[in-house]
């Protein structure tokens, strides 16, 4: 009894610490920003007049609808991309599966604005594809025009969220579920539509809602494509315009946050009581089938087409990084290695900074994620669910809002010893990344913990291990797959984060990669080196991801069938 209460005290203390961390670095900064939205711009008094103005302004109503249209369209297009990929890789035995599972993640590890630059060169009105089409057929296709251009870029960037979640959900389906339907006469698309997809629905909804929310909040892509009449760009433009203190920017931020929380809540409702994985007994995952030769050809054709499309930003970027001048032509005029030379001479600090920041952030994220998961699932602490909700809520806070909040909150807090405001110390960038990526890590850790039977813990305690030692020796090793998955997804996405960090970088030597690329891309001569830096970033993060993926796979085999890794996002 004594050890029980002591362990509860320990968990309570831990929960309190985490809660404090989230309060200081998530809630306070956001509230600071939100507060402005409720201030009368003339008198400073609390008011709702700004929200009345928002809904009275036709431009904002239009922006609101545009944002919903783009987010919805991106979800649709991302689904069209990821459903076949997820299905083929989980359902059939063929060599392409590993390729897709790895390459499918690659879009995530490139800042979307970099992708937009490359896609403009390839698919823009006078991009390679349209120049060719124009030459051959005498017309052009407006891939990148207006809101649909944003949809295209966003879908290509964010579809991995659906792919990852859907694949994990498909892998978790007991093969007997599918076999029993086949046994009763269902096959092909009917089988998929009636049994497989509904069972994978929770995973799909989780991924789709994340895509919706991310696109809804995304700033860089519409800005780069010069689309102003959407919510996030409006917020940013208004907050950062020269000399203007228009509360509308803050109002829009509040609306972004509220709407994102709302869509999280909707997906939460949709998923409630649908945790099918726990209902199913036995195990196995979808049965994999060998493909007949002609099926294989068809499969590869579909997959290559999709991969070509989703990798087009990388292809464009690679061309850009090796090209001398690329202007109004199908391909660059000539090729050179000079840009890479330039990058390795002048820009290596971006790379080491990124590895440091993203690595540290991901490490802290999985530690926090594991702790929160354990507190939520294995203790009876009052209010423990709120820890989960608040940490997950971070996903609904746009990076810009967090960045502004940090600047406003921490500028007056001086860090001892180095005598600098916290808001201009590089550690604040790491903290911002920790908060921004915590939801990803937390989801993965939760998934990992849920797969550890509580009996395994009880067995350890029965043999004399304390709570702490049980966690360290039994729980953490068993959920290591989930932890690694959380680490990877946090690390990879943190490496390319720009929206919050751009506000917080206070010295060039502290700047991470995405910032460096952005900066290079702001000058005529910097386009090539910027692209080269982008390729280097993709390679580094890609290789790191691949290695960790292999590690997970190996561990999974060692622990099979007890622990299966689901890199379930959020």
């Amino acid at each position: 009894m004594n050890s029980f209460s002591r362990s509860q005290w320990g968990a309570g203390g831990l929960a309190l610490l985490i809660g404090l961390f989230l309060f200081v670095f998530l809630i306070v900064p956001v509230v600071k920003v939100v507060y402005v939205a409720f201030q009368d711009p003339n008198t400073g008094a609390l008011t709702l007049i700004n929200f009345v103005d928002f809904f009275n302004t036709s431009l904002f109503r239009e922006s609101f609808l545009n944002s919903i249209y783009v987010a919805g369209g991106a979800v649709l297009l991302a689904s069209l991309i990821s459903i076949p990929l997820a299905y083929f890789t989980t359902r059939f035995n063929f060599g392409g599966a590993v390729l897709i599972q790895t390459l499918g993640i690659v879009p995530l590890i490139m800042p979307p604005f970099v992708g937009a630059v490359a896609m403009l060169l390839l698919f823009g009105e006078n991009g390679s594809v349209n120049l060719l089409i124009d030459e051959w057929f005498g017309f052009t296709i407006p891939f990148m025009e207006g809101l649909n251009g944003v949809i295209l870029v966003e879908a290509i960037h964010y579809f991995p969220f659906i792919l990852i979640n859907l694949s994990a959900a498909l892998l978790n389906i007991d093969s007997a579920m599918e076999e029993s339907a086949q046994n009763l006469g269902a096959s092909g698309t009917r089988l998929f539509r009636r049994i497989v997809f509904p069972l994978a629905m929770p995973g799909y909804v989780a991924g789709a809602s994340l895509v919706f929310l991310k696109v809804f909040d995304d700033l860089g892509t519409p800005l780069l494509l010069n689309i102003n009449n959407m919510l996030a760009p409006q917020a940013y433009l208004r907050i950062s315009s020269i000399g203007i203190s228009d509360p509308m920017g803050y109002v829009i931020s509040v609306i972004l946050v509220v709407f994102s929380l709302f869509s999280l809540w909707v997906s939460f409702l949709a998923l409630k009581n649908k945790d099918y994985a726990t209902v199913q007994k036995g195990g196995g995952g979808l049965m994999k089938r060998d493909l007949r030769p002609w099926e294989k050809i068809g499969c590869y054709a579909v997959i290559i087409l999709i991969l070509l499309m989703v990798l087009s930003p990388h292809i464009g970027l690679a061309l850009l990084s090796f090209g001398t001048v690329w202007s109004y032509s199908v391909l660059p005029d000539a090729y050179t290695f000079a840009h890479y030379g330039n990058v390795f001479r002048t820009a290596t600090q971006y790379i080491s900074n990124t590895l440091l920041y993203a690595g540290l952030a991901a490490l802290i994220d999985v530690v926090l994620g594991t702790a929160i998961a354990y507190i939520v699932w294995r203790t009876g602490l009052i209010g423990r669910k709120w820890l989960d909700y608040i940490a997950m809520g971070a996903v609904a806070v746009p990076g810009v809002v967090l960045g502004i909040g940090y600047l406003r909150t921490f500028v007056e807090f001086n860090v001892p010893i180095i005598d600098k405001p916290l808001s201009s110390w590089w550690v604040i960038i790491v903290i911002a990344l920790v908060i921004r990526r915590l939801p990803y890590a937390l989801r993965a850790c939760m998934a990992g913990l849920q797969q550890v039977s509580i009996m395994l813990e009880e067995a350890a305690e029965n043999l004399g291990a304390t709570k702490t030692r049980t966690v360290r020796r039994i729980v953490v090793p068993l959920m290591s797959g989930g932890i690694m998955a959380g680490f990877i997804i946090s690390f990879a996405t943190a490496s390319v984060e720009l929206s919050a960090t751009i506000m917080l970088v206070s010295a060039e030597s502290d700047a991470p990669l995405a910032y460096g690329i952005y900066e290079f891309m702001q000058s005529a001569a910097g386009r090539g080196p910027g692209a080269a830096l982008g390729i280097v970033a993709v390679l580094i993060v890609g290789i790191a991801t691949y290695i960790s993926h292999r590690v997970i796979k190996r561990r999974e085999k060692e622990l099979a069938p007890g622990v299966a890794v689901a890199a379930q996002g959020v």
Partner: protein
Amino acid sequence: MKITKRIFVQLTAGAVLAVGAVMAPIQAVAAEKLVIVTSYPPDTTVTVGKAFTKATGIKVEMLKKKTTAGIKYLQATAANNTSDMFWASAPDAFEVLKGDGLLQKYTVKVKGIPEKVGAFPINDPEGYYKGFAASGYGIMWNTRYLKAKKLPVPNSWADLEKPIYHGHVGMSAPSRSGTTHLTVETLLQGEGWEKGWARWKDIAGNFKTVTARSFGVPDGVNSGQFGVGVVIDFFGLSSKASGFPVDFLYPKMTTLVPANIAIVKNAPNPGLAGQFIEFLLSPEGQEVLLDPKIRRLPVNPATYAKAPKGFPNPFKDKSIGSAVKFDLQLSKSRYNIINSLFDVMITYRLDDLRAATKAIQTAEAKSKGNAGAMKLIKQARALVSKVPITAAKASEKDFNSIFKKKRKKATTKVTGRQAEFEQAWDTEIKANYAKAKQLAEKAASM
């Protein structure tokens, strides 16, 4: 700092150590380092910074922020300032900082810098910021693009109004880019409030896009997304120097304005900051500006002797930048109003404006000599160019304070809110554009 970081990298790679243990080896930062907040790209900052370090041995830390973000940053961190200098183009950005009391005075020791470039004083008369280079606004174009689309090379602002350029022009918004703001203001001052706005709307009717970043314009021209861009000279000159098939010219009506540098109030290293200014204005510092990646007009006339052939020299060619006498006070008095008006009338209503312009252009081409139709077209043009407020109102102090950044005191009484006015303008403008389109279509069918 560097050492600590390397340790971090190793630790993270190993991904083993607890966070607490890593925090220990942090040490105080060396003070002998100049921190400059700048809007310039690395091509400029790295090149100049290297030359400076080579000449003086002082290390420089460049902090890249968009001009607007740089102002925000200095304002937000003023209470605990860590930046030494602010280095950017637009003089009005420096005016904003000066107004907020965020700059400190400095007296230059170097000799040989004239008082004016074009019609513009090089240094702040009150001594808060110094001009180190001149920049003028002009037109850049992609030669391949113009050739493929069979477009002539434009050489004045008026050219950009021509129907032939419809959908081929790009520009940034004044609220987004300090330099663009100057371009807009120059034209308004040169042509007058009503005519100036009419000209801008006629040009904007041909816009392909309004970019959110000022560099978005040269970027778009360089890659061929659109053919013609309204840009500051060094964007055009450096793009050309980087090998892109582009060219640049100054139209007659342009302002040469100094690009500036200033020392931030309570700078940690004011001494080093002074040295940086001196270097920048010295003959060797001025020569760095001619680097193909930078290509700015030096403020020291002597430096032009070393410039490549064909490089514009405003001290010799008096046609550059002298047509308009730029009134900085007037510009300052209506700064935010101009931004807001441009966004409401052009940036956010670009589709409506374009549609109206297209309709008018079509109608004009069709109904040459048809007096009735021409009358309708004239009405349509008048509707399009209509501005919701007068020049006098735009400079009105009370009205401006609605659009101001900060209320000076809680007691300052302000009535009305920016969002309210903008919504009213938007309703009016949208109706005008729609009506103009309708009239033009009617004219075309006559």
